[in-house]
C-alpha cells in the first residue's frame, strides 16, 4: 500500500463527504469488533475459513479507510488517524535506532506487531522527551508517566503485560533490568568507554562545535545521575559492574533456553532486555568491560539473536492491517486529567491578566499624555554648544 499515491488519487476527489465515511466506519467497526482479538493481547489470527473471508473484507475496508483518513489528516490535520509514528534517534551500528532509550520502545512495538512508521529526530540529543509515540494529535512522550512503554500500556494502545503484572517475579525482574542494567549501560556509554559510540548515536547530524558542547553536558549529567564524583568514582564503578554481572547471572538462569522471559508470550521486559543486549553487542566497542561480561552468558546472546531474527528483521517490509487499533479505545482514555486543572487555572489567570492589562494600559496612557504634553516634539538634540577655548 503506497499512501503517497493513494493520497494523490484522493486529492482529486477533495469534496468527499466525511459524514458518510464516518458512519461507514462505525458500521464496519461494529462488525469488526466481535471476532477479532483485543488490542492488548498478542496477535494470533483465528483459523476458520469463514473468518478468513470476513477478514479479507475487513482488510479491504480498513485499507481504504486508512487511505482516506490519512489523506484527511493531511488536509485538515485534526482527525485522528490510524497511522502510528514512533519518533526516535537515527539508526546506526546496524540497529534500527541507535539510541539506547529509543530502542526498547521500538522493540516493544515490534513484539506487539503493531504497524507503525519510524521517524527520526537527529537534532535533540539531550532531550528526555525522545522517543515519543504519536497518532494524530495524541502524543506519548518518554518523560511522562514512567516512559513511552508505560504510557502506551496505560492508554490502552498496546499492552503486552496484562496477564503478567500480577506475578511477583515480574516486578523484581523489571527492577533488575530497568535499574541495574540500565545504570550499567548508561555508565558504560558515557564513562566506561568514554563516549566513543556517542558521536554516531547522538551527534551525527550536528556540527562539531555543538556536538562537543552537548557531549560534555550529557557526560556531566550522566555522571550526576549515577552519583559519580571524583571521590566515589572507583567504588561506584566496581559496584555497577558487580551488579551488572549478578543481573546477567540471574537473568541467564531465569531464561534458560526459553524463547521469552515469561512462558511463551513476549512482554515489555523482553523489550528492555533485548534492547540492552543488542545495544551492548552491536554498539559498544569490543574493549568494553560490560560487553565482555555479557558475552560470557551465551544463552542471553542466543536469546537476543533469535528474537532479533524473528521480530526485527522479518517484519519490516509488509505492514499488516491495523487490526488492533480503534479510535474509540484511546479516545476514551486519551483525555488526560491534566486538562482539568488547566481549565481552572486559565479562568483565574484570565481574570488576573485582564485586570493587570487594564491597569497597565491606564498607566501607559498617563505616561504618554505626560510625555506628549511636556515633550511636544522637541527632539532636536543635535544642537552642539559652541565652546570657548
Amino acid at each position, binding site marked *: 500500500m503506497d499512501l503517497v499515491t493513494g493520497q494523490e488519487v484522493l486529492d482529486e476527489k477533495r469534496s468527499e463527504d466525511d459524514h458518510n465515511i464516518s458512519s461507514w466506519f462505525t458500521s464496519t467497526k461494529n462488525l469488526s469488533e466481535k471476532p477479532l482479538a483485543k488490542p492488548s493481547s498478542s496477535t494470533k489470527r483465528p483459523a476458520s475459513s469463514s473468518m478468513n473471508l470476513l477478514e479479507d473484507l475487513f482488510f479491504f475496508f480498513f485499507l481504504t479507510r486508512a487511505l482516506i483518513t490519512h489523506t484527511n489528516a493531511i488536509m485538515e490535520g485534526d482527525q485522528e488517524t490510524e497511522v502510528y509514528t514512533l519518533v526516535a534517534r537515527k539508526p546506526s551500528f546496524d540497529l534500527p535506532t541507535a539510541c539506547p532509550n529509543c530502542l526498547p520502545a521500538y522493540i516493544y512495538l515490534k513484539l506487539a506487531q503493531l504497524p507503525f512508521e519510524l521517524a527520526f529526530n537527529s537534532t535533540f540529543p539531550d532531550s528526555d522527551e525522545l522517543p515519543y509515540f504519536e497518532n494524530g494529535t495524541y502524543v506519548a512522550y518518554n518523560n511522562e508517566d514512567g516512559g513511552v512503554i508505560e504510557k502506551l500500556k496505560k492508554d490502552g494502545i498496546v499492552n503486552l503485560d496484562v496477564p503478567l503484572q500480577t506475578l511477583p517475579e515480574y516486578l523484581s525482574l523489571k527492577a533488575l533490568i530497568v535499574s541495574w542494567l540500565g545504570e550499567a549501560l548508561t555508565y558504560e556509554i558515557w564513562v566506561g568507554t568514554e563516549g566513543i559510540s556517542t558521536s554516531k548515536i547522538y551527534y551525527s547530524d550536528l556540527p562539531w562545535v555543538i556536538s562537543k558542547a552537548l557531549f560534555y553536558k550529557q557526560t556531566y549529567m550522566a555522571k550526576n545521575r549515577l552519583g559519580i564524583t571524583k571521590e566515589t568514582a572507583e567504588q561506584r564503578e566496581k559496584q555497577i559492574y558487580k551488579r551488572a554481572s549478578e543481573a546477567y547471572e540471574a537473568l541467564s538462569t531465569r531464561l534458560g533456553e526459553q524463547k521469552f522471559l515469561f512462558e511463551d508470550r513476549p512482554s515489555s521486559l523482553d523489550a528492555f532486555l533485548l534492547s540492552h543486549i543488542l545495544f551492548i553487542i552491536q554498539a559498544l566497542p569490543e574493549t568494553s568491560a560490560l560487553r565482555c561480561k555479557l558475552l560470557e552468558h551465551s544463552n542471553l546472546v542466543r536469546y537476543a539473536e533469535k528474537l532479533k531474527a524473528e521480530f526485527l528483521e522479518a517484519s519490516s517490509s509488509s505492514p499488516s492491517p491495523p487490526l488492533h487499533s480503534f479510535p474509540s479505545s484511546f479516545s476514551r482514555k486519551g483525555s488526560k486529567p491534566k486538562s482539568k486543572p488547566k481549565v481552572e487555572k486559565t479562568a483565574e489567570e484570565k481574570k488576573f491578566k485582564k485586570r493587570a492589562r487594564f491597569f497597565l494600559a491606564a498607566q501607559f496612557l498617563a505616561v504618554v499624555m505626560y510625555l506628549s504634553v511636556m515633550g511636544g516634539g522637541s*527632539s532636536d538634540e543635535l544642537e552642539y554648544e559652541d565652546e570657548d577655548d
Partner: protein
Amino acid sequence: MANPAEELDVNPPIREPEEEEVVEELNGDEEGEEEEEEEDNEGEDDDTESKSQTRKGRSSADRINAESLFRRMRAAPVPVRVHDVIVRGNQKTKDHIIEAELEAAREATTLQELLEASRVANSNLRALDIFDSVNITLDSGPPELPGTTNVVIEVVESKSPLTGQIGVYTRAEARSSSLEASLKYKNIFGYGDIWDGSIVHGYDNSAEVGLGMYLPRFRGFSTPFTSRLYLSTQDWLKFSSYKERSLGLSLGLLSSKYHELVYTIAWRNLIDPSQAASASIRRQLGHTFLSALKYTFKFDQRNSYLRPTNGYAFVSTSQIGGLAPDSRSLRFLKQEIDLRYAVPFGFYNTALNFGVSGGVSFPWGSGYQNRPSSVPERFFLGGNSSPLCSLGGPSALWGFKTRGLGPNEPRRKGDSERDFVGGDAAVTAFADLSFDLPVRWLRERGIHGHVFASVGNMAKLSENEFRNFSAPKFLETVRTSVGAGIVLPTSVFRMELNYCHVLKKQEHDQARSGVCVTFSASS
C-alpha cells in the same frame, strides 16, 4: 608676505551668533551650527588662548580686513593649500583615527572647500562619541610658504569613559522594537572603540544579554565595524508552543547610508517546556547551527519616519543561511521587500501613505523541495506594531493579534488552542490617510488622526506545498481590516489608539474587531 591667511584679520568670532553669521555668509544656508571655526591672525603661532584674551582688544582694522576677505570669498574661490594637520589634546586616541577624518580637507584647493570639509570632519569627530569637545582651527602655514594653511584639531577626550543609557530602539536583527539598557566603555585602546554591555527586553517576549564592540574604522575601511556577542531567549509558547534560545555572534561588516551587511553565527535551540506542541513544531525542536549573511539595501526618502507625508522608501533584505563548510548548518534563503509611498495633500497636513511588504523564505540544499523550512525563519503576521512604521518585511497587520494568522495546526490532544506555525511566503499591503485634528492643542503636540485599511496573507511553500500554491486561492483567502484612530507621537515611541474592524479573516485566525493599541519605536 602674500599669505592669504595673513589678510584674515578677522575678529575671532568666538561668540556664537557672530561666528554663525560668518559661516552662514560663507556657505549659504546651513543648519545646525555645531562647529566653531576661527581664522587666526597673522603672526600669532597657534595660540588659541591668546585669541580669547585679545578678543576685546581688536581694532576696527581687523574687522575691515575680515570684511574684505569675505568679499573676496563671495566673489571667487580663494586658493589655499593645506600644509599640515596638527592634532592636539589626545592622550589615548591614536592620531591616525582623528587625521583620517580630515582626508577630504587635505585635498581642498580653495578656502570654501576647506571650510566645508572642516565642518564635515568636525561633525564626524563628534559623532565618534568619545570626545567631550572638538575644535578645528585654520592656522596660517609656515611663513616661507605662501598660500598654505595648517589645520589644527583640538580635542578634549571624555573624562569618564563609562556611560550608561536606556532607550527604545529598533535593531537590525530584531523584528520589533525593544527597550535597551546599556553600559558603554569608550575608547579603551585609543582606536575610537566603544565597548558595551547591554540588556534588551523586546516587545515580542524576548530578552537578550549582549556584549558589543564598535570600531569606527577598521584597518583602513571607512565604514564602521560592529560586533556583538549575545545570548537571547524568545518566548513563543503562547502562540506557537516553542521557546527559542540562541547564543551567537553577529558582525556588522559594512554599514553605510544605503547598505548594510551583517554576518551572524549562532547556536539556536528550540524547546517546548509545555510539551503541548503540534506535530510540525515537535519535529523542529532541537539544536541548530546558524551561519548566515544578511544584506540590506535601504533607500528612505520620506520626510519623516514617524509621520511621513512626502516621499518614498524602498528596503530590500536578503539573507542566505548555511555559509559554513559543514553541511549540517541551517540552509535557507530569505528575501524581503518593502515599498512605501507618501502622497501629500495640501490642507490640514493630510497625507496618504501606501505600503507593500512581501517576503519569501525557502530552504536550499539536497532535497530542498521536501524539507520543511525552519520555523524561526518563517514569516508571522500580526501584532502590536503599526505597518506604517515597520520597515522590516511583512510583519504587522492592524486588528490581528501577535502571530494571529496563517497556517496553523492543532496542538497536542487535550489542548484546544492551535499553534501558528508561520508561512514561507507572506504579503501585506496597507493604505493610511493621516490628517491633523481641528483642535490646536493636539496639533501642537503632533497628535493627529488617521483612517486605514490593510490586507495580508501567508502561504506555506516548503514540503512540496508550492506545487499546490495557486494565486487565485491566495487572493481568495486574503485577510482584510479597516479602521480609524488617533496617533500620539512621543519622543520615545509612536502610539496609536485605533478602532479596527476585521472585514475578512479565515477560520482559526486570532483577530478582534475593537479597540487596539499599537506601539512603534521612534528610531
